[in-house]
C-alpha cells in the first residue's frame, strides 16, 4: 500500500516539520508579542527583516544558510566541532523550514495579540497580577485560537518547504529527502510519473490534516468562551 521509500519520506517530513514548528513557535510568540505591544526605534526595520522570508526567493534563504553554516565557514566549523552542524542533516532541513514558516506564524500570532481588548490585561494588573502572570494567564490563553492556527499554518508551510531545504541540505534519500524533495526526484526520473503522483497525494495528508486539527482546536477554544 505504501512503500518503504514513501514511508521514509513521509516520516522524515513529519519529523522535520514538527521540529521546525516547535523551534519557531516560542520565538514567534515572543516576537509577535513585542511587535504587538511595544514601540521602539527600528521597529519598521525589524518588521521588514521579519517578513523577508516571505518575499525573498526560498533558494536565497537556503543559500544564505549554506554560506553561513556550512562546515567550510568559520561558524559552521565551530558548530561541527561541538557536534551541532546542521548542514546536510535533517536538523538543517528543520532549520530551513522553520525559518520559512516563521514570518507566517509571527503574522498570525501578532494579529491575535492585537485583537485582545486591553481592558482584560489592565484589569488583571489592577487585581495585583504581575505583567508576567498577566501574559501567561490572560494574553496567551486569549490568543490561543490565533496561536493554534498560526501553528497549523507554520506546520503546513514547513511540510511544503522545498527551495531553502534543497539548497541548504541537498536531496539525500533517508537523510534530508522530505516529501517535496522526493516528489521532485520522482518527477525528474524517467518513468517516475506514478510514483510522483502518489507522493503528491501524500503531501496533502500533513497539510490538510494540520489545518483540520487546528480548526477543530480553535473552534473548541472559541466555543468555550461563547464566541462560536
Amino acid at each position, binding site marked *: 500500500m505504501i512503500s518503504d521509500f514513501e514511508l521514509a519520506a513521509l516520516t522524515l517530513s513529519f519529523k522535520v516539520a514538527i521540529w521546525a514548528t516547535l523551534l519557531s513557535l516560542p520565538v514567534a510568540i515572543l516576537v509577535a508579542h513585542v511587535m504587538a505591544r511595544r514601540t521602539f526605534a527600528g521597529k519598521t526595520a525589524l518588521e521588514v527583516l521579519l517578513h523577508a522570508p516571505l518575499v525573498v526567493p526560498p533558494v536565497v534563504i537556503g543559500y544564505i544558510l549554506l554560506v553561513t553554516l556550512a562546515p567550510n565557514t568559520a561558524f559552521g566549523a565551530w558548530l561541527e566541532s561541538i557536534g551541532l552542524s546542521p548542514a546536510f542533516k535533517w536538523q538543517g532541513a528543520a532549520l530551513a523550514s522553520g525559518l520559512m514558516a516563521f514570518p507566517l506564524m509571527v503574522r498570525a500570532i501578532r494579529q491575535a495579540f492585537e485583537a485582545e*481588548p486591553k*481592558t*482584560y490585561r*489592565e*484589569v*488583571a*494588573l*489592577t*487585581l*495585583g*497580577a*504581575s*505583567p508576567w502572570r*498577566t501574559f501567561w*494567564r*490572560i494574553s496567551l*490563553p*486569549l490568543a*490561543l485560537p490565533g496561536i493554534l492556527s498560526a501553528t497549523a499554518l507554520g506546520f503546513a508551510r514547513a511540510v511544503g518547504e522545498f527551495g531553502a531545504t534543497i539548497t541548504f541540505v541537498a536531496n539525500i534519500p533517508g537523510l534530508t529527502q522530505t516529501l517535496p524533495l522526493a516528489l521532485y526526484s520522482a518527477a525528474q526520473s524517467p518513468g517516475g510519473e506514478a510514483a510522483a503522483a502518489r507522493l503528491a497525494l501524500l503531501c496533502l495528508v500533513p497539510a490538510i490534516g494540520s489545518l483540520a486539527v487546528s480548526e477543530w482546536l480553535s473552534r473548541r*477554544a472559541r466555543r*468555550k*468562551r*461563547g*464566541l462560536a
Partner: protein
Amino acid sequence: MSMRGQVDIHWRTGELEGFAQFNLLPGITALIGPSGAGKTTLARLITGLEAPKGGTITLDGQRLFDSRENIDVRTDKRMIALVPQDSALFPHMSVYENLSFGCRIDEDLLMGLCERAGIRNLLDARVHEISGGEARRAAIIRAIASAPRLLILDEPMNGLDPKRRREMMALIRGLSDTTGQMVLMITHQAEEMLTVADNAILMDGLRATVHGPLQQVFARPETSELLDLDDAGELIIATISDRQDGMIGCALGGQTLWLPDDGEDIGTKVRLRVLARDVAIAKQRIEGISVINQIECCLVHINKRRRGTDLMLVPNGTDLHLSSRITARSLTALGLKEGDTVYALIKAVAVKELVATPKSASGS
C-alpha cells in the same frame, strides 16, 4: 474624618490639560460629573494605567506617584482595583476562576461575598452564560477579593434597569459597610451619589477640585449647576427617632420631620431628599391643614431668580439646610426678609427617602 489618600496631579488629554486635587476619605466617594469630564481618565491615572504629567498620588501613607522624586509605582503593586464599565470578566475562565484570579481573602469570606451578591449559584458558569448585571456583580466581588486599598467602580449602575440599579446601590453600600472597603465610584447621576456616597468629588472639564463630605459638596452652588438636578432641593441625613400612626419621625434639632413608615428600625440613618418646590412657607403655625410637618426655621437667604424665588432655610437647632421655592408674589405678600423666623410646611409624602432598600440603608 481621617484622610486615607491624596491626589494632586495634572495630565494631558490630547490638547487639553487636566487637573485634580482632592483627598480620599474612608467610605464611598462619588466622583461625579457629566460625560466627557475626564472621570475614567482620572481613574486610570490613579490606578497607574496612565501616567500623569506631574504631581503626587498618596494612598495609606505610601507615595504611589511623585514626579519630583521620580516615583511611579507599577499598577500591579498599587493595590487599587478597577471595575471598568464593561466588567471585563476574563472570557476564557469560569466565574469562579475569575473570582480567584487575584484573590487574597480566604475561601469562606469569598463565598460569603458571593452569597451577598447573589452569584453563588453562578460560580461554575462560563462568563458568556451570565447576564450583564451578574457579570458586573461578579466583577465587583472579584475586585473586593483582591483586598485592594482602594476600589474604583466605573459607572457601576450604568445600563441596569431601575430595580437592578437599586439592588446594586444596596450591594455597594452594604459591602463597603461590612468590609470597610474604601470605594471611589464614578457616576454621572446625582441620584446614585445621593443614595450611596459618603463623600463626593465634582468633576467637569477635566478638573476635579471640589471635594468633601457629601452634604457639603451637595450644598455648593457648583453642584446643582453641574449636575443639572431635575429639581432643586436639599439632602438631609438624619436618624429615625420615633414611630407613630404609620409614620416615622426623624429628629431635626428639637423638632421632628415625619414621613411614611417603610419599616426601618428606630436608630437607622436615612437619607432624605426634600425638593424646594415641595416646601411651602407660613409666617406662623397653621391649624386645620393636612400638612404634617411644620418646621420652625430661620430664613437665612433669599435668592430671586427668573422664575420664582429660592429661600434658604435653617431649621432651628440644626445646621441643616432646607430650601423653598415660592413665587415673587408670595414673597411680597408675606413681606419676607432675611433673618425672619418662618415655618416650612412639608407634606410627609413629599419627603423622599433615598435608600436602596430599607435594610441595607442602615449605616454602620
